[in-house]
């Protein structure tokens, strides 16, 4: 089921909200079970064949977690339990996500014709990573014993289940346990709807609106210089509004239930460096990769050279997490290389004088954006060869078409660029403070003008009017 669909907005969400708050009058546990069941239903609609896998994954990880938290195991046994749990998760992820890719490469290398056809379970990357973090924290002794319904809800919670943000048990489970969240809070519901509306508008009107232009570069046999650039930029903005729209919708929906989800985007295209970009783009994935991959690998504690190696490994695996294809490997490696260059630059070049700070920041932002756009070409292209063809066109200004279609595309790109660089982001507009569990204080205090409320209603209206029958989220494939 899609957030940007009439059945979800008009039926599923109101029914789940009503049931949640109705049960909340009677019990603190029943709404949790209700929400977990609703989340499974949400998943089952369209992905019923993978519900058993999801339930097995929950049971397996909860069992291993129980061993790590409650059972009195010796240190060696604890380590073995963790290794067993993480290996089990990675094995399942590997089979479903990477078996086909591995077979393809073996076939290419050895000239064999082994065929592997395994469907990718939707959301598997997200719920697997979520649970690996849980196991590692349980092993570190940072997790209290959780009740099964709360744990199951933490994994399946439908606002995040399919495309994130990646949740952390320490952030979520205490919220599920709170009694206050089971009672409707008109302020949180209003703020939740507004944030959802902004996300829906981003998805249906902005991301889906620019999507046709992507074909200029990625579906053309030999794009011209301007077509390649316009297509690459269109994808750059499509991905931004698609994914940040989804994340906003997830936060908005969750807020209606009184639950604060972590922020996943902070205007990433305004980043002044690649390091800054990764602190602003898919923030929960960046945090996961840092805490559960980069730091365990040694982080920056083992000298400069190993730091760069760790960065490259982390980003390469981050690329593979997005998809089992060489294009994602190249994308991840490129970003790893960018990060190495950025850190080396910071280490070698002294701080710039205050007078030059602003121009340097602007130049840094432009260079960062350029680097990100080039990497997105690999992220989107069907193959590395296809990506190289597009990049070749982007580097050949002798072949320019600039016809009617290209000029119209240019106007559209300019509008999107203005929105990305000049408009405030959703959390700034709504004063969303995940850490302090605060949102819309200006609205609550009456400092927000009624006009803003009507503008938001227009955004919701156009978000709903923009719903199309065939529009998926890009991150559903990961």
């Amino acid at each position, binding site marked *: 089921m899609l957030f940007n669909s009439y059945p979800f907005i008009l039926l599923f969400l109101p029914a789940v909200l009503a049931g949640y708050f109705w049960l909340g009058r009677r019990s603190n546990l029943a709404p949790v079970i209700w929400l977990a069941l609703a989340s499974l239903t949400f998943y089952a609609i369209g992905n019923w064949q993978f519900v058993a896998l999801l339930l097995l994954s929950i049971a397996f990880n909860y069992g291993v977690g129980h061993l790590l938290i409650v059972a009195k195991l010796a240190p060696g046994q604890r380590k073995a339990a963790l290794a067993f749990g993480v290996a089990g998760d990675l094995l399942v992820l590997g089979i479903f996500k990477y078996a086909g890719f591995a077979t393809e490469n073996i076939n290419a290398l050895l000239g064999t014709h082994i065929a592997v056809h395994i469907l990718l379970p939707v959301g598997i990357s997200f719920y697997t990573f979520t649970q690996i973090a849980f196991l590692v924290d349980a092993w570190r002794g940072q997790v209290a014993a959780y009740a099964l319904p709360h744990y199951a809800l933490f994994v399946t919670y439908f606002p995040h289940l399919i495309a994130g943000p990646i949740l952390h048990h320490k952030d979520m489970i205490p919220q599920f346990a709170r009694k206050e969240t089971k009672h409707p809070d*008109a302020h949180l*519901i209003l703020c939740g709807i507004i944030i959802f509306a902004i996300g829906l508008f981003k998805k249906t009107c902005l991301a889906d609106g620019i999507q046709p232009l992507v074909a200029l570069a990625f579906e053309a046999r030999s794009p011209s210089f301007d077509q390649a650039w316009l297509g690459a930029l269109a994808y750059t903005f499509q991905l931004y509004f698609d994914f940040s729209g989804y994340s906003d919708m997830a936060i908005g929906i969750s807020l209606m239930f009184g639950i604060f989800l972590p922020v996943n985007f902070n205007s990433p295209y305004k980043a002044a460096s690649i390091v800054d970009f990764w602190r602003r783009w898919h923030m929960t994935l960046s945090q996961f990769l840092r805490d559960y991959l980069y730091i365990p690998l040694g982080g920056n504690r083992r000298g400069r050279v190993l730091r760069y190696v760790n960065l490259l490994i982390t980003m390469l695996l981050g690329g593979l997490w997005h998809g089992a294809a060489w294009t994602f490997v190249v994308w991840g490696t490129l970003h790893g290389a960018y990060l190495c260059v950025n850190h080396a630059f910071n280490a070698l070049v002294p701080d710039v004088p205050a007078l030059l700070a602003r121009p340097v920041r602007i130049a840094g932002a432009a260079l960062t954006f350029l680097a990100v756009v080039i990497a997105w070409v690999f992220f989107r292209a069907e193959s590395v060869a296809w990506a190289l063809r597009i990049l070749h066109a982007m580097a050949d200004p002798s072949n320019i078409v600039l016809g*009617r279609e290209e000029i119209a595309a240019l106007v559209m790109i300019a509008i999107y660029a203005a929105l990305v660089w000049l408009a405030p982001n959703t959390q700034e507009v709504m004063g969303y403070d995940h850490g302090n569990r605060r949102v819309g204080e200006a609205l*609550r205090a009456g400092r927000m003008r009624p006009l803003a409320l*009507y503008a938001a209603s227009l955004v919701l209206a156009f978000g709903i009017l923009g719903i199309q029958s065939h529009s998926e989220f890009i991150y559903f494939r990961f």
Partner: protein
Amino acid sequence: MQGTPTHLRRFLLASIVCMLGAAVLTYVVDPLQLFRASRLAFYSDDTRVQNAGLIRSQSFDTAFMGTSLAIHFRQSDIDRALGVHSIKLAMTGSNSRQQAFVLEQAIEAGARRVIWEMDDFIFVDAADIAADPYLSVDLYRRSAKGIASYLFSAAMAKESLFGLLRSVPPLREPLSRAAPYLPVKFALANVDDIYALPRDFDLARDYNANKTLASFAYITAPSRRRFLGEGYGYEAMVRHFEQDAVGLITRHRDVTFDIYFPPYSILQFVAMRDASPETLNIVMDLTAVIARRLTRLPNVRLHDFRAIKAVTHDFANYGDVIHHSPVVDAMVLKWLASGEYRVDPKKPTASLDELKAQVEAYRVER
């Protein structure tokens, strides 16, 4: 400010009012001319949607259908060459389900003659028309769902708003001139310009032998040759031909169908011969079935332009191995008018046999 519950109610009410407002705006402006014809109307190149409005708003006696090979024809040229009053409904990449459905609507709206550019690949297996995500059956039929999807649409509201602004006299001229360069779909002032190439188009740049030969090399490269046969399955194609083409024709005995096989470059068949011979066999067998079947139907005139060597062997006429230039469009109209290449019902596969011989004999100069 009042309390939050009041805000919430006001917010939701305002959203509903906005949606209704957008629907009213679209109904009043009616960019698609689905409810009423308009002198101030503009048109879109998105023919799968635009056709639904054209069928409602235009007067015509002849419907022109096809794929991207027929997309650049101008209605005025068709009218002049054939002495008809036409409506061009060609849709790029369309399949026989879509074409038959749209033609059915046009016939119901008054078309007594159909000119149909028929490619073999339109008969590939695809979604049934009711489940087709790329063609709104409900919009064409003007069902409640179709009307709702038209009125309650942000994209149409945007077009309507632009249309409304364009109808304001001081803004009319500048906005009409700017429309083709802006991200609005209904940007063409003349119905004749739908998907037609601009009159000052540089034909030599886009249609030349270099491009045609490069395209041939591209599609026959070992890594891509499997695409040549993608979707081709003899049984399914014959079934779709019977269901979509023959079904439509036999349901409308009072309508004359001028069906033509377009003049691909010879390289289209040579590519199949060299890189995917099984696909060539399917194409030849399928078009033999089509030729035999159609020539037996009394309301069909079948024309086969695929073996006209002077055109198909001159690669300067093409932008790739199949898409011919507007110069050839004009020839097609001339041939249709004269009936010069009409298939003889007594020898339905004669031109096909000629084509087979040409394909067999042709050697590509590398």
